[in-house]
């Protein structure tokens, strides 16, 4: 036994903490058993009346028990975090003594195990809500849903956040943990993961509906309830994606909202399929078509997400993502792969069976009449939009799979840069936005091209006017954001195109779509205000996209260096260093900078502090500062203070070197004492010539008891001259100048019209909530009138 192990000096864990941990673990096993029992009971009772509560009672009870167990498990984990139970490995690695309350909440889902638990809990909660409205689909729906939750709970059994560190059977409590990753200590970490995981959880609803529809062969009655979930999923997932973008922009200093990172894409792909599915519902509602395709789209939402989860969590993309995930437990990873394979295969086989069954049921004459005829109507516009949305989803899925594809074909790993995504997806974006702009003007019947042009002409003209206004604002001396009219995009060799007209055209199409939908909303407000949600969502989405295009394409960027008493300059601004707000080792420390220029005067406060990790050297951590103006953001990132004024340079006797406005001349070396003996000193004789005269300096190296001791010479109020090393053979010296007051490197960006991104997100969310709220109220009213099934 290793009695010197410091763990033996730690206090033993209390019974309470052990009980809570065991309870959390037991809840997970309870959830597995409950969900398996739910599916078994539902399977045994599948021929009973699904709308008779007595026949669904037992499976429902076990399902509720399973979901509550998952909630109980996360509450147990929360208690471990809030009571500092560092004997638990997960708590030890994600929390520390004195961690603020909200960061403890964030810490619960900041690691691999906790985020899986959050996924399971969210899926359980939305599952409890959803089973109330599945009516005749109850049995296949709950079998699919509970098997999925059983698999997630199974993953949690292996990827458990309740693993405890024991030493020879005894559990000691370390005094603190290693703390939460600094970049995660942010309010976005508190609200972004629960939002996006609720979105992910709702994908299970859409998938289970698709399986239930295939099983029952009832393609009609699911539309009303699933529509509400599709709208809610789209809204919550969209909001979660936007929150992630704001987090990256405001806090992480990635320099933009969206980086086409695999983790971002794995959330974006299901969003595309959900949007496509929602529009498919509209077509089916109106025309009765798209029955099988809607089932496919509904199921694909979850399957694509599972594929993304597999790519990002399995380590396949470990080199290719800015996100860092720990490698999963092998058994948990196998379960995740099996879950993905089973979900994908079940959907694929189900769709084949459903398509064959449908083909047999369809009379011969209807098959002949299913020949497509092209009409300018809303159905075709929606179909076109669905096709494009699905292609965007497929394209992103392919893009993030490139490392896997390369590995499969035996090539060296490669990744897709953000620019490649943008260059490829713009070809899908343009027709998609045109469809969003034109669709409100189309009827469900047939319009002539001439009448459509007549309808959109005013909108189009107004859009061109608005683009002109933006161009004028962009060049305004106070409000403008420095458009570089000479910027050129190379397409092939020396051939290319000017940036400004290209971006104005692409954004102009978006503005056309915004104006078109706003005009439609205004006309609808009088007749059917409840139905404007979808159009509002379109306005928000396109506003957001236009904001992203402007902020990325017209971004200006420059480097600056700032030092106490020595201002820096970039992009028409001058930066004066004012000091630190709290101290370099305080987490909320900010570098205070007075910014003057471009008719503005404000204080910039980018954050910089040094982390103090156990057993490691302090390491700088920075967060950007964003100064919001109505028409653009001024975005600052700051680097750690730099002390080196020159490179370490070897001088031979008589060598000179110019640094700023001083000439450094090395005159020679002298030695006091015997070489290799303690106390021996080597002195470099250096002459520094400036405009005010010539001075001599004598930096030294002394051989001390525990190594070399440096004795620099102060050259002026902010410079130290060090003798770094010397060569006794040729008496050459390695000299270096250091600043006493550090220089802070900065990157300054002007990001135009980012306000569109914020406004767009708000409008999009509002539109989604409006739509979902309206549908819920409508459904309740119909239920009260007993026009719909009530389970």
């Amino acid at each position, binding site marked *: 036994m290793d009695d010197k192990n410091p763990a033996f000096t730690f206090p033993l864990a209390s019974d309470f903490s052990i009980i809570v941990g065991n309870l959390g673990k037991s809840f997970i096993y309870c959830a597995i058993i409950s969900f398996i029992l739910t599916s078994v009971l539902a399977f045994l009772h599948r021929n009973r009346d699904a709308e008779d509560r007595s026949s669904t009672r037992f499976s429902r009870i076990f399902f509720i028990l399973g979901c509550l167990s998952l909630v109980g498990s996360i509450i147990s984990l929360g208690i471990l975090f809030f009571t500092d139970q560092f004997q638990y490995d997960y708590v030890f*690695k994600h929390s520390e003594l004195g961690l603020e309350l909200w960061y403890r909440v964030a810490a619960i889902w900041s690691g691999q195990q906790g985020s899986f638990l959050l996924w399971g809990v969210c899926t359980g909660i939305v599952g409890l809500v959803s089973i109330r409205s599945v009516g005749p689909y109850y049995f296949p729906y709950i079998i699919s849903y509970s098997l999925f939750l059983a698999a997630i709970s199974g993953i949690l059994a292996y990827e458990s956040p309740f693993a405890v560190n024991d030493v020879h059977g005894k559990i000691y409590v370390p005094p603190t943990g*290693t703390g939460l990753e600094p970049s995660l200590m942010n309010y976005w970490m508190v609200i972004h993961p629960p939002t996006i995981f609720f979105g992910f959880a709702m994908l299970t609803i859409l998938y289970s509906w698709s399986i239930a529809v295939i099983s029952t062969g009832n393609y009609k009655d699911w539309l009303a309830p699933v529509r509400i979930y599709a709208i809610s999923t789209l809204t919550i997932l969209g909001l979660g994606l936007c929150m992630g973008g704001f987090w990256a922009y405001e806090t992480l200093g990635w320099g933009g909202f969206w980086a086409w990172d695999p983790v971002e894409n794995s959330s974006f792909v299901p969003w595309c399929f959900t949007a496509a599915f929602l529009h498919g519902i509209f077509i089916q509602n109106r025309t009765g078509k798209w029955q099988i395709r809607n089932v496919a789209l509904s199921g694909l939402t979850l399957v694509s997400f599972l594929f993304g989860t597999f790519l990002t969590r399995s380590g396949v993309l470990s080199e290719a993502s800015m996100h860092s995930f*720990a490698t999963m437990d092998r058994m948990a990873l196998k379960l995740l792969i099996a879950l993905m394979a089973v979900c994908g295969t079940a959907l694929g086989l189900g769709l084949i069976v459903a398509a064959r069954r449908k083909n047999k049921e369809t009379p011969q004459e209807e098959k002949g009449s299913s020949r497509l005829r092209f009409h300018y109507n809303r159905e075709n516009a929606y179909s076109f939009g669905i096709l494009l949305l699905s*292609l965007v989803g497929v394209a992103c899925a392919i893009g993030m799979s490139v490392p896997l594809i390369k590995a499969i074909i035996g090539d060296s790993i490669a990744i897709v840069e953000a620019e490649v995504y943008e260059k490829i997806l713009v070809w899908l974006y343009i027709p998609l936005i045109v469809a969003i702009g034109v669709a409100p003007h189309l009827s469900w019947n047939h319009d002539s091209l001439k009448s459509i042009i007549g309808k959109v002409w005013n909108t189009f003209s107004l859009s061109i006017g608005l683009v002109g206004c933006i161009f004028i604002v962009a060049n305004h001396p106070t409000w403008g954001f420095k458009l570089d009219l000479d910027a050129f995009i190379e397409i092939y060799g020396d051939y290319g195109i000017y940036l400004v007209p290209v971006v104005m055209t692409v954004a102009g199409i978006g503005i056309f779509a915004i104006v078109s939908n706003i005009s439609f909303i205004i006309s609808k407000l009088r007749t059917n205000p409840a139905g404007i949600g979808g159009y509002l969502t379109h306005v928000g989405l396109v506003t957001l996209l236009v904001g992203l295009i402007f902020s990325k394409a017209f971004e200006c960027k420059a480097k600056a260096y700032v030092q106490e008493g020595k201002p820096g300059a970039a992009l028409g601004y001058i930066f004066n260093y004012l000091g630190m707000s709290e101290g370099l080792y305080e987490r909320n420390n900010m570098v205070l900078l007075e910014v003057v220029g471009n008719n503005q005067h404000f204080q910039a406060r980018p954050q910089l502090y040094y982390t103090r990790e156990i057993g490691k050297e302090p390491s700088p951590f920075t967060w950007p500062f964003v100064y919001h103006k109505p028409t653009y953001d001024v975005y600052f990132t700051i680097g750690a203070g730099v002390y080196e004024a020159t490179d370490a340079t070897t001088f031979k006797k008589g060598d000179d070197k110019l640094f700023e406005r001083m000439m450094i001349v090395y005159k020679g070396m002298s030695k006091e004492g015997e070489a290799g003996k303690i106390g021996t000193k080597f002195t470099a004789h250096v002459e520094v010539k400036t405009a005010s005269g010539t001075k001599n300096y004598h930096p030294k190296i002394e051989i001390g008891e525990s190594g070399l001791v440096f004795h620099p010479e102060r050259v002026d109020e902010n410079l130290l001259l060090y003798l770094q090393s010397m060569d006794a053979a040729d008496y050459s010296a390695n000299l270096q100048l250091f600043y006493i007051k550090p220089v802070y490197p900065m990157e300054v960006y002007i990001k135009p019209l980012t306000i569109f991104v914020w406004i767009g997100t708000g409008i999009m969310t509002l539109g989604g909530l409006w739509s979902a709220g309206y549908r819920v109220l409508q459904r309740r009213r119909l239920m009260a009138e007993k026009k719909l099934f009530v389970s």
Partner: protein
Amino acid sequence: MSSSHIRITISVCLAILLIGYAFVSNSSPYVTINEAKKTKGENLHLAGDLVDGSFENLPSKKAYAFRLKDMDGNTIPVLYTGEQPANMTNVNKIVAVGKMESDYFLAHKLLIKCPSKYESEEKQDVSIAPSVSYPLDANAAAKTGDSNGR
């Protein structure tokens, strides 16, 4: 399936193939040092370990230099022209994005993999887990970070 449906299906499949080809052919390869020397491109991804103690600031070039050791065991000097990334002192895995110059790799972007706060790939041995030294000598650590790197 009617002929128009077949035509649409074929068109969609062709579109997907085209998109796939566009992504794969425009992807940026991860290369070893030997491969980097033979490959042209501005966005080569050179992955490797940061050689201990090799990271240095080059104020004259407004750049940073370090040595990278790739999976074949070869090392190369890397000149990085961007801002010093946060957490640089705790980094071991680095992906340098850039191009090959005559005898060094010129990087305009660094992708940092910092495992310090995330779980290690292997399960930590429980007998050493609590043996982390406590408490940290905050003042000593602070001095190291605030001094001029010496």
